[in-house]
């Protein structure tokens, strides 16, 4: 019997615990009881606790089943994931709260990610599954979170929330373009196309038009077949052509690496959403722990923690002290690569649009 199509996801209300259904749309306030533990209070007086636990995102079914076992014991079978890969156990019965926390702690799950600290690092596939990676994703994430764990568990706090994201290439799956600290996989060498194979596996016109800097031109081969050639000087190794055409690989183990970007945000609180800006153009891929990347990020985080005022996000802090002070204090070299030159520097129209929900009626 053929499967039913177009049925959509299960209805979310069928998955909500009773305390949420009873208080849906009628919550009064919430408090952070301690790092990783939120308490939500309904207008009815009902209480719900969310216990937030670090999640690796790339998890096996055994792990999911373990989460389920824990949720069955303490949460009447209800839990959720956050938009940043963490897990939240939903506790309706206060008597179960501390026993749950003990079980999670005994199993080695870090509890935290609330308040003014670091939550999980949003990331995607990297070398685990991506076809265009310039770096791995899960590896650097693990390395950085291991180093900065105290900012997750609340042992150390920050002036405001600090959101870190990682993208293994310029496609930037995830909100890397708007994060307090962004880890971006980059290539630094143009593709080496197999011009003879290319017309057989790729559409030449789409490949040519895929290049943001018009670095790809048509070229006829000796036998008259239409292929392409690359103007290396115009190529900035974004890899979009490779997305369109597998005969244009550009990954290079020594040239590929990681760039660090800073100062982005998405919320409207105090200041509006901002793009991340380039801080460090290149750090090498050094598996398994990427020490240069970890050190660079730790340096920025510690400086921010010591220097920023309460509620200042990284971007707000840098704007107040000035970018020259930022480069000076972090010791990061400022280079000609830091100066924007995409499309001759002319800002596109959307720069002048209202990219925040902050407005007066």
């Amino acid at each position: 019997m053929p499967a039913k199509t177009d049925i959509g996801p299960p209805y979310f209300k069928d998955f909500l615990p009773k305390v949420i259904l009873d208080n849906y749309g009628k919550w009064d306030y919430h408090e952070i009881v301690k790092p990783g533990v939120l308490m939500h209070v309904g207008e009815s007086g009902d209480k719900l606790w969310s216990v937030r636990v670090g999640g690796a995102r790339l998890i096996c079914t055994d792990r999911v089943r373990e989460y389920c076992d824990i949720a069955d014991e303490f949460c009447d079978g209800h839990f959720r994931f956050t938009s940043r890969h963490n897990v939240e156990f939903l506790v309706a019965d206060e008597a179960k709260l501390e026993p749950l926390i003990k079980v999670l702690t005994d199993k080695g799950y870090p509890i935290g990610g609330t308040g003014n600290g670091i939550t999980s690092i949003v990331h995607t596939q990297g070398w685990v599954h991506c076809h265009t990676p310039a770096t791995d994703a899960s590896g650097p994430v693990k390395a950085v979170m291991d180093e900065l764990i105290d900012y997750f568990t609340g042992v150390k706090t920050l002036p405001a929330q600090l959101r870190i994201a990682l993208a293994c290439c310029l496609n930037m799956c995830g909100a890397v373009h708007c994060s307090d600290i962004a880890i971006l996989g980059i290539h630094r060498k143009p593709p080496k196309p197999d011009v003879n194979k290319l017309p057989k596996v790729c559409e030449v016109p789409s490949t040519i038009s895929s290049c943001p800097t018009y670095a790809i031109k048509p070229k006829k081969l000796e036998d008259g077949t239409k292929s392409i050639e690359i103007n290396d000087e115009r190529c900035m190794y974004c890899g979009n052509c490779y997305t369109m055409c597998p005969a244009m690989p550009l990954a290079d183990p020594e040239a590929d690496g990681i760039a660090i970007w800073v100062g982005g945000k998405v919320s409207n609180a105090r200041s509006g959403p901002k793009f991340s800006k380039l801080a460090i153009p290149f750090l090498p891929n050094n598996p398994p722990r990427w020490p240069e990347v970890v050190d660079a990020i730790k340096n920025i985080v510690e400086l921010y923690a010591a220097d920023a005022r309460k509620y200042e996000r990284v971007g707000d802090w840098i704007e107040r002290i000035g970018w020259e002070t930022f480069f000076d204090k972090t010791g990061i070299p400022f280079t000609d690569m830091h100066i924007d030159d995409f499309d001759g520097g002319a800002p596109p129209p959307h720069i002048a649009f209202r990219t925040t929900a902050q407005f007066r009626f």
Partner: protein
Amino acid sequence: MAEESKTPLLDELEKGPWPSFVTDIKMAAKRKPETMDLLNQLELSYEEKIGHWKHGGIVGVMGYGGGVIGRYSDRPDLFPGVKDFHTLRVNMPTGWFYTTKALRTICDIWDKRGSGMTNFHGSTGDIILLGTDTDQLQPLFDDLSEAGFDLGGSGSDLRTPSACCGPARCEWACFDNLQMCYDMTMEYQMELHRPMWPYKFKFKFSGCPNDCVAAVARADMSFIGTWRDDIQVNDDEIAAYAEGGLDIQADVADNCPTKCISYDASSKKIKIDNSNCVRCMHCINVMPKALKPGKERGCTLMAGAKAPILMGARLSSVIVPFVPKEKLEPPYEWFKDFIDRLWEWWDENGKFRERFGELLDRVGMRVFLKAMDMEPIPQMIEAPRTNPFVFWWPEDVETSGKEAK
């Protein structure tokens, strides 16, 4: 005698306090030979500092044009288990709320037909079932459908919409973003499963201007919950915060972006000049017991966000300042008409692989507004243009010429 590990680099990442993905891959690898190949191929990537995946081709499921991402190892000689290792996107329940029963069902199906590795969740929000071969795709879909699950989007379609936890858990949700996210997912199943546009299109629904689902950065159509009237103030709770040691002047009033809050330390009262409040949420974030969003609630519609490829990253910008809550509930007549006309315009005018925001930049906002029969308003811009290269509608020149006479 213990065998020497074949994955010494990855083993390193089992140490340390953060949950280790390597531990999880190894757990699944015990049961699944293809996952052992995944582990070993990953180790090779760590040694060689390069990826080993090829993409493309397979769409895989009868009747749909998306939801499956084709992946093939480029070293099937070494790792035959991952020769085909495709990904299936499963539309998650809105807000990522689960019952253990539902999750165990997914685990049972996946353990039967795939690698045992998952992502909770992918970037767009779907459940990712990571790694199965071509002939398991249809049976996998059949099993999931039987269990009440459906695929998410991929390709040039409507991608799976996502929402923050909204009224299910948050007192700041200004509209039922969970319900609307679900309803729009169901309404546009055709657009989600059958790619028919120049490129992808994303909806994201945040309940308030804190934008916890990053809608302003990541959605072609961003819904940001907001209110239109005065912030609700509880004077007693304000006094309680002050007595509890909160420095309301420094922490709250001084951080207001428009300086519209004045605080009187002697009476422990605040006054908000709401006409100048831009609803940033900071004061509410700091004093959740004392301050709440106003009563006249709805959302701001912003549009055009995307990641850098092809013409640079974009944030969404304001296109409809306030849609009242009543229009954000079934039957959604206003919104359905609006989005149908917007999609029609983008589909007709957009080039292949041109995102909605890029089309807006290429043809100009005035062209979009005219096509949608919308009035330009100052809330759409940060500031008026600085370059003098202004296009005029010829009919306006005719008219103003006549008036001048």
